[in-house]
């Protein structure tokens, strides 16, 4: 342990942590712009400067470790003046007008400038050129607003192992972006939006669909259907000052009705359906491998995370045949809304508009993939992020906190607890295991609360195995088989698992991959800033949502059963193939 003083107060902290962390642990807030929890500090922005007694110059607290006897001042006159100076310089180069900026509400630079009392522009140097890059379906970049903090590079390269963006050119011309400062569509970006989630300013944001959705809602000719992803209900509250991890499912439904959506449905319904299709697909692949001795079709990888799919299409095309052919729940929902539901409700599919609310920017990309039109129309028309829905609710003047709870509509609104946990890492696996175990053995998954705890939590790669014993007759070949599964989140972890599988070092039957850290609850479209504490709080809320339901298993969802009886007939049947399954292309 190390003893030191911060602002005159004696504190004791563990060795080898930074001054910034030491201050944080003692509830002293030091402003930062480039620092990102969980990654090495790069010391680029200099707003975290503090005064260390005896040192000649100010010190960047994020990259300086504590030492015995240190005396630190985080708020001396010298520190305040230097910080203000740094922010004034940043603002003088900055080319943005807060009045017209997407981030004006939560921009870290603006908030910092205001808290430091920046009131004038002293520097009259050149400002950056606005250069708007809207070349991809999910994201918009404006290099004029970029403060070169490099957080986006840290996540794109470190966490996602994509490296779509890097510093280009030098000196004043330096820009943070794709090769040769070209559009994001010129590099293999997977559209995950993790860069947009960490950007402190309005330099990377989602491409908004808010206007299109208002237009659809205002159009009396259109019948507008909305679906909400599992992860929204555990995060939307944060847009309305609730603590992370507050469940707001009922209020969210009421708010969507007040926004005048014609039907409020749940992506969860499609998540239950996914488990039936994907679980059956896994069993078929097991059969083809164990009975028919076919090779190279296992392990089966999950397919619900579109950033992951694009990643595999770019970087690991050899495993594409191993990825489940199931569409993501968002796309299954869209295809069914404009066929099954449209017919049931007597609405012409070309009059129907399907809007999704997703924690994810990659879903905007996925919705416009060429092949996603199996209903005969665009299956999903518009995708809003959690943040965008929050803005719409606010701009409609709805007092979210005071709303009553209400229930989703039927038939595409009923879901099991297994669908809820699609929102977090390990959840799809757990949901699948609950169902697959029961199909194979005819018995309920024999674990407390039905939770597969070994694949839960924020560890990057997790494993579990289950012995299948005394199966029912049709699955006799699985008797004694040890089903091995793995779960990874964050694409760098996905790459590790694939490399282990490819090299033969690891043998699995089923692998869940989610693009974002923590799974969808940590998606690129969620309220900012998502740190590990927020992730854990949202995950806890999701498990509570699951446990609060009496319906806990996908195959018990009555409306999914009805859908098979009335329409699809059976998992992997002909209709399923047409509407619910897809294929992938090497990029």
């Amino acid at each position: 342990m190390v003893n030191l003083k911060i602002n005159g107060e004696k504190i004791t902290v563990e060795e080898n942590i930074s001054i910034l962390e030491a201050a944080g642990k003692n509830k002293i807030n030091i402003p930062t712009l480039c620092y990102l929890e969980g990654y090495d500090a790069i010391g680029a922005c200099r707003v975290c400067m503090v005064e260390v007694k005896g040192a000649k110059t100010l010190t960047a607290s994020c990259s300086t470790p504590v030492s015995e006897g240190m005396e630190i001042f985080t708020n001396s006159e010298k520190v305040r003046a230097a910080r203000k100076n740094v922010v004034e310089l940043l603002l003088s180069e900055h080319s943005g007008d807060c009045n017209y900026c997407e981030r004006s509400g939560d921009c870290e630079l603006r908030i910092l400038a205001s808290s430091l009392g920046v009131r004038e522009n002293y520097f009259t140097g050149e400002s950056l050129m606005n250069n708007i890059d809207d070349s991809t379906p999910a994201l918009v970049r404006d290099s004029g607003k970029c403060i070169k903090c490099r957080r986006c590079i840290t996540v794109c390269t470190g966490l996602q192992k994509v490296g779509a963006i890097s510093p280009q050119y030098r000196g004043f011309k330096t820009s943070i972006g794709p090769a040769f400062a070209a559009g994001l569509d010129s590099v293999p970006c997977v559209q995950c939006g993790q860069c947009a989630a960490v950007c402190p300013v309005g330099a990377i944001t989602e491409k908004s669909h808010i206007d299109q959705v208002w237009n659809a809602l205002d159009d009396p000719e259109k019948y507008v259907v909305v679906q909400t992803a599992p992860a929204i209900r555990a995060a939307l509250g944060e847009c309305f000052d609730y603590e992370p991890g507050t469940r707001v499912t009922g209020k969210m439904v009421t708010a969507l009705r007040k926004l005048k959506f014609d039907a409020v449905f749940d992506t969860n319904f499609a998540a239950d359906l996914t488990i039936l299709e994907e679980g059956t697909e896994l069993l078929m692949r097991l059969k083809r491998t164990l009975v028919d001795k076919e090779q190279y079709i296992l392990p089966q990888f999950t397919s619900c995370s579109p950033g992951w799919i694009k990643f595999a299409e770019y970087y690991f095309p050899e495993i594409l045949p191993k990825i489940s052919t199931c569409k993501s729940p968002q796309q299954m929902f869209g295809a069914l809304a404009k066929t099954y539901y449209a017919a049931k409700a007597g609405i012409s599919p070309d009059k129907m508009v399907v809007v999704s609310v997703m924690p994810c920017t990659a879903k905007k990309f996925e919705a416009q993939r060429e092949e996603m039109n199996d209903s005969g129309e665009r299956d999903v028309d518009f995708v809003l992020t959690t943040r965008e829905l929050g803005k719409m609710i606010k701009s409609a003047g709805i007092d979210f906190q005071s709303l009553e709870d209400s229930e989703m509509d039927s038939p595409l609104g009923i879901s099991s607890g297994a669908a809820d946990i699609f929102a977090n890492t390990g959840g799809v696996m757990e949901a699948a295991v609950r169902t697959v175990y029961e199909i194979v053995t005819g018995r309920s998954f024999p674990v407390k609360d039905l939770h597969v705890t070994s694949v839960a939590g924020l560890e990057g790669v997790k494993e579990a195995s289950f012995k299948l014993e005394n199966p029912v007759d049709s699955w006799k070949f699985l008797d004694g088989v040890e089903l091995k599964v793995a779960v990874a989140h964050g694409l760098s972890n996905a790459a590790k698992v694939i490399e282990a599988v490819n090299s033969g070092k690891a043998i699995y039957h089923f692998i869940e991959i989610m693009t974002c850290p923590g799974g969808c609850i940590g998606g690129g479209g969620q309220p900012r800033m998502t740190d590990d504490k927020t992730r854990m709080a949202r995950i806890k809320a999701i498990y509570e949502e699951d446990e609060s339901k009496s319906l806990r298993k996908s195959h018990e969802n009555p409306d999914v059963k009805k859908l098979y009886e009335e329409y699809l007939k059976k998992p992997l049947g002909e209709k399923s193939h047409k509407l619910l399954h897809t294929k992938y292309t090497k990029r």
Partner: protein
Amino acid sequence: MITEKTGQSQTEEELFQQLVNAINELKDKDGALIPILQSAQNLFGYLPEYVLKHISSTLNIPYSEVAGVVTFYSFFSTTPRGKNLLRVCLGTACYVRGGKEVLAAIKNELKIDIGETTGDKLFTLEIGRCFGACSLAPVVMINDEVFQRVKPARIRDLLNSFRNKDEMEEDHE
């Protein structure tokens, strides 16, 4: 396909093979990227996109990061160079003694910007740092030849002498 002359004419494939050899030799060393880029530039005269993409995938360095290095150093170029490389010195001495006007005159005459090559592939325009001839500023370097006390009004004549040289060579061939 015949590429820019690099001493003797080599096909693009031969050049590429030489690059592959160079990469193999260098790739396991620390900081291999810059020497590999240098060797590519020496071979091709510039850094074509497909070469950069190849380097990125063999070294397992993201393309954006490779481009970041290429754009950081002024000695890398991603556009084919013209037959004659013009470098206008904008060091302090040249700058104050008319270097800026010389540059403007060249841009005007060639109708290209810094870093660009003329349509006839005859000239590439670049900025130089000090060539060590400050007392005779402003200075322009064309290939290996230094021209001192250059006047904007004389730019056309100077460039014409290179144009004529080129025509004479063509006549010989």
